[in-house]
């Protein structure tokens, strides 16, 4: 129960970073923290006390395996996070090339 709550605290730190920070790289880092928190929350849901990794052993019959479904989902979510981070960094580099700064308060050519 406490673990779930700590996970959501990490989620909120990432959210704070995204909404509050002025530097583009810090915003990307905030998004990374949000991705980590959601992934950890998913795997925490699938954990089982005294569980074993979801791999069959050659000789023995393992009964108490951990839930493999969240693991499949978090694998997908990690790679989605990598895709988004790579795209955001590419945009950030091009913005730095055009505006000369990473500070979003100075990147204000869009009006209205």
């Amino acid at each position, binding site marked *: 129960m406490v673990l779930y709550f700590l996970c959501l605290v990490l989620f909120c730190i990432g959210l704070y970073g995204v909404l509050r920070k002025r530097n583009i790289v810090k915003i990307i880092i905030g998004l990374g*923290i949000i991705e980590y928190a959601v992934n*950890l929350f998913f795997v925490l849901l699938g954990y089982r006390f005294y569980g074993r990794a979801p791999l069959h052993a050659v000789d023995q019959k393992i009964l108490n395996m951990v839930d493999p479904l969240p693991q499949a989902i978090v694998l997908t979510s990690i790679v989605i*996070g990598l895709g988004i981070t790579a795209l955001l960094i590419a945009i950030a580099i091009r913005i730095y090339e055009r505006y000369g700064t990473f500070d979003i308060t100075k990147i204000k050519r869009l009006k209205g």
Partner: protein
Amino acid sequence: MELHILLIFMIFAAIVSLEIKDLLSSVVAIGAVGFALCLAFLVLKAPDLAITQLVVEILCLVILIRATIRKDLPLVIEGRWVFNTISTLVFVGIFLLFSWWALKELPPFGKPIMAVVRRYLEEGLSKTGAVNLDTAVILDFRAYDTLGEATVLFTSVIGLMAILRRPGRKE
């Protein structure tokens, strides 16, 4: 118990990575959060995820450092956004308060109700032949997800190359 330590370390490292002035050290701090997450996956008996998270984390760090190191960056100046800070903190506070009640109704930690997954565990080896049930779920029971997943990565590579191409428009 060690999960609690790992989580508190991750929270502390996340705060450090957001608040520190120098960009490069904040990137290194986010690396620390990623490696702690990889350790947490190992403790939670998810070896597949630990490998993937570790390796993806390294690539993320290399790309992030690539983006921040060449620039002669002044130290990050913090703005006086009073209203923005208050509204974010109020939103975060309400969110955490309501989430505490919602978390009470989830099944307790460590005792998941594995309604659908029970069949994966029983038939995983016989139906798909894969020893690693995680791969059996990814590439056979829910292979359509992985097709979407490969497309997401393909889209981000093509999108990245589209954004980084040199002459944007023909004059």
